[in-house]
Structure formats: C-alpha cells, structure tokens
C-alpha cells in the first residue's frame, strides 16, 4: 500500500508534530499554533493541514482522540490529535538533524547576527 512517505519529513508535518508537543489540539488550533511558532510564516491551509494530518496518522506519528466537546465554541464536536511516542521520537530526530545542519551553517559562518 503506497502511503505517502514522510522521509524526508515535510516541513508542514514537522511543524504539526512540534505543535502537538505538550498538548492535544484540533485542526484549527494546530494551524494557529504552527502560525505562532513560525512567526506567522507558515499558515497551513485546510488542504495542506488535513492532508498532512492524514499522513501522520497513517504513519502512526499522531493519534486521533475521540471527538470532544469544544470548550471554546459551544456544541460543535471536533477531532483532536495527540502526538504518539513514535511521532515524538521522529520530531526529536528531525530537530537533531536540523541542529546538525545549523551547526554546519554556523561553522561555515553563513549566518549573521548573534541571535542564532
């Protein structure tokens, strides 16, 4: 069964994994969290968001929780997602890979400024 491969991990998928670290979120909350953690640089549209969510579900990196009452907007039932241990592991590995990239970039001095 040809599932969409997550190797290399697409940026959107990685951001979603990061957004789910620490708390279970529904789709719109994930989108806002991703926008927030990327300085509004990545605003996931519905197509990209749910297509990524499905790939992550299929690969066992996140789990869907039983739908819950949305505390924010009344009676609507929303689907919430939680990071799985495999997802956490993959997010960590991806972060380490990026850190390694960053280390090389620093060594090559292509980065300017003090904040990185």
């Amino acid at each position, binding site marked *: 069964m040809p599932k969409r491969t997550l190797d290399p991990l697409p940026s959107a998928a990685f951001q979603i994994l990061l957004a789910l670290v620490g708390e279970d979120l529904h789709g*719109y909350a994930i989108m806002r969290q991703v926008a927030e953690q990327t300085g509004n640089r990545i605003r996931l*549209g*519905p*197509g*990209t968001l*749910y*297509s990524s969510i*499905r790939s992550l579900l*299929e690969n066992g990196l996140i789990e869907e929780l039983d739908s819950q009452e949305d505390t924010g907007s009344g009676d609507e039932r*929303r689907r919430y997602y939680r990071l799985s241990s495999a997802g956490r592991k993959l997010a960590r590995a991806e972060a380490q890979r990026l850190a390694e990239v960053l280390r090389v970039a620093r060594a090559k001095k292509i980065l300017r400024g003090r904040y990185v």
Partner: protein
Amino acid sequence: MSEKLYAWLLRLYPAHFREDYGEEALRLFRDRARDERGFFPRFRLWLDLFFDFTISLPREYFHVPAPRVAPLVPRRVYGFPTLFVLEDASPRPSALAIGGLLSLFTLTTCWASLYGVHGREIASASRFAGVPNDYQSSHSEPRSTAPSAAAPDASHATTRPGALDSPQRKRIVDSAIANLKEHYFDRDAAQKMADALAMHEKRGDYDTVADPAAFAALVTQHIREVSPDRHLSFDYFQEPLPPQPTEQAAQVSPQYREAMKQQNCTFEKVELLSHNIGYLKLNSFPDPEVCRVAAMAAMTYVNHADAVIFDLRDNRGGSPEMVQLFGAYLFDHPEYWYNPRENTTEQSWTRSPVPGSELADKPVFVLTSARTASGAEQFSYDLKMLKRATLVGETTAGAAHSGTFHRLDDHFGIGIPEVKAINPYSSDDWAEVGVEPDVKVSAPSALDVALKLARARTTKK
C-alpha cells in the same frame, strides 16, 4: 457567501479526502473567516487558500488512502473463515472495464452453454425418434442419432438462423406439409392440416413472424386448430440438427456400450432397505441389447423383497423395450403394455410371468419428479393405469414423443405419429400434461413417504 464559495471549491478534492476531512476543512475555513476580518486579513486568507489548493490538490489526487480496516486484521477467530480487506481504494476505471467485460463474457458463455446448447439438446435429443422403437433419453445416451453436443456437425455451425425470411418460411411450411401427407397415420386429418398450413401461408399469416421460435409456435397452433393430436409436434431447434440418421445409426454405438458399462447401465442404486423393501434407482431405461443382463440382475437382487420402490425421479426415459422388461416382472400374466409410439402387436403384451419372479404380487411404488420423462413416464403411466403401483412424488414432465422425427431443415423438425396406438385407459396419455402421482409430495420427500407407505402395507399383511 465566502463559505459557500469555499464549500464549492472543496468539491475539487477527491472523494476520499472530502469524506474524511471535508467537514473539518470547512470548519477550519469558518474559524479563520471568523477570526480574520477586515480587507487585508481576508485577502491573505484567500491567498493562503489559493496556495493551499495548488499544493494539496495534486497531492491528494496522487494519494492512495491507507486501509482503514487495518486494525481489524489481527482480530481472528480460529475455526471460522475470516475475510481481510487488503485494498479499499476504488478500482481504476480500466480495471472496472476489463472486469465488467470479463464477467459479461463469462455470463454469456455460461448461459449459452446451459440453454443454447444443453437445453435445446435435451429437447431435440428426446424428441429425436429416428429409430422408431426407441425413446431417446437426453443425458445418458450418447448415441449418434441424437444431436448431441459431443458430435456437432461443423458444417452447420454457420447456418444458425436469426430472423426468417419469406422464402425460408415457405420452404419450411411446404416441407412440413409434404411430411404430414406422407407420414401421418390419419390421411384425412393429414390432408386437413396440410390444407390449413397452405391456406395460412398463402394468406400471409407467417409474413410478419421473423422470430423462428414464434414461427414454430404459430405453425403448431395452426396444426392443432385442425387436429388436436398432442403427439404431433413442430419444433424449432436453436442448435443445428444433424443430418437425417441413416439406418446404420440405429446400431448401438461402441461409445454407448462403453458409457453404459461405466455407469452401471445408469442403475444408480439397487438395494434392500430396512423392512425388506427393495429399492431401485434407475436413471434411464437403457437399451436391452447392452443392459439386459444388468436389468435382470437388479430385479433378481430385489426378488425376495416384500415391496419394491422404483425411483424414477432422475429418469429421463430410454428404451421402451427396457421399460417393458422391468414391467414384466410385476405381473403373473401377460398385460397389455401401452406404448403411444407403437401399433398394437403381440409385442404389446408383457412377457409375464417372468420365470422365478416373486414380485408379481408385491406392492410397488414409483417415485416421480417433474424431471421424470418419456419412457419413465410410460412406466409410471402404465403401472398406474393397471393399478399395479402407487405413484409418489410430483407430476411428471409430459414428454410422450411418440412421433417419428423428420428433419425439415437445419433448425426445424416435425414429429409425426405414424401409427395410432390403442390406449385402453383413456383418450389421452401423458403427452404435455404429465402423469399425475397418486400421492402428491415434493420430489425430495418422495422416498420417505413411499417408505412409510411400503412399511404400512407390508406390516399389515
């Protein structure tokens, strides 16, 4: 308004995506539209959506969703058959088309082989009385006189008629008229039938009937209007008929001999059941030339039984001589044995008593079904009329086939009775109406019912 537009745009996604996330996507749009008001945020929202579409649409169309039933797979109950869904993606259109064509082809082939060949073969084989002294049973007698599937004549394969044209119809009707005049036992009636057919033909009554089966039905109707002889039949055969059999074809073929040897002369069971009840399951009445000894052995085996059951539920007929041979064991004096195909001669009496037969005064039961046909119906009919047996089961098929078959062309034939047999019992025999059983029960339960009756009869004695 914008939500409606987005809902409409969502339709661009493939069905599996819409099913799984259409609702969620719409809700996300609603949430964003609620939170991002004003010209610039709204413009940014639509820009995001535009990019979202360009990226995710192609991706969704190339994506094959994973099987949703995957978690069900390990749930296996031992000892029960289980089904696993390995692929829940919709099949490709080309696969569907190929599958559809294949099924259509298979169905057509099955249908053609079942009805086109087999069904017609049964009809034509059993009606085919090229040998006057012989019923043709359809499934157990691979004789060369019958148009069997085993020996199709390739030269006829191309002459299958679709619609009939006027000259064809005229030729067939003329040929039928000639045969009736020449062969039908009652010259006056033959002349009347011939005149009627000629009149209908001349009047153009057949001009509108292009369908061969409908044509055969109409001609039959016209013949019956003049002469209600149910033994006279005008038939259409979808499969081409073999050439008219020659005298040599009347000989028993080596194939037939071999087939009978392998099938124990179609005597499926010859047993003594509890309460000393003899049981013979005869699936045809084979030619005595080949099976006389087997038949005598079978009757000898049940000779000391207190009652005898003849199971003819799967018997499609066969040789009238064999029918009479079995009948002979059941009488202590010669009995008139009615055969609709034969003139009354000294052969029309059973050769009773059969030396050594103990069965002449024993109760006899005959099991019948709607498949019981031809010679098997003669056996049932005669024993019933002679009040010698109790018939248990269903009304029989109603195949008398007393006419001698004459081939009119590749697809039409006429069965013409050449003699008028004396029926001492009634003006009608079982032709087309079948033989009514004395005890009407479904064929599968006939044996049980007959056994009960036989036990009751034998213990009473």
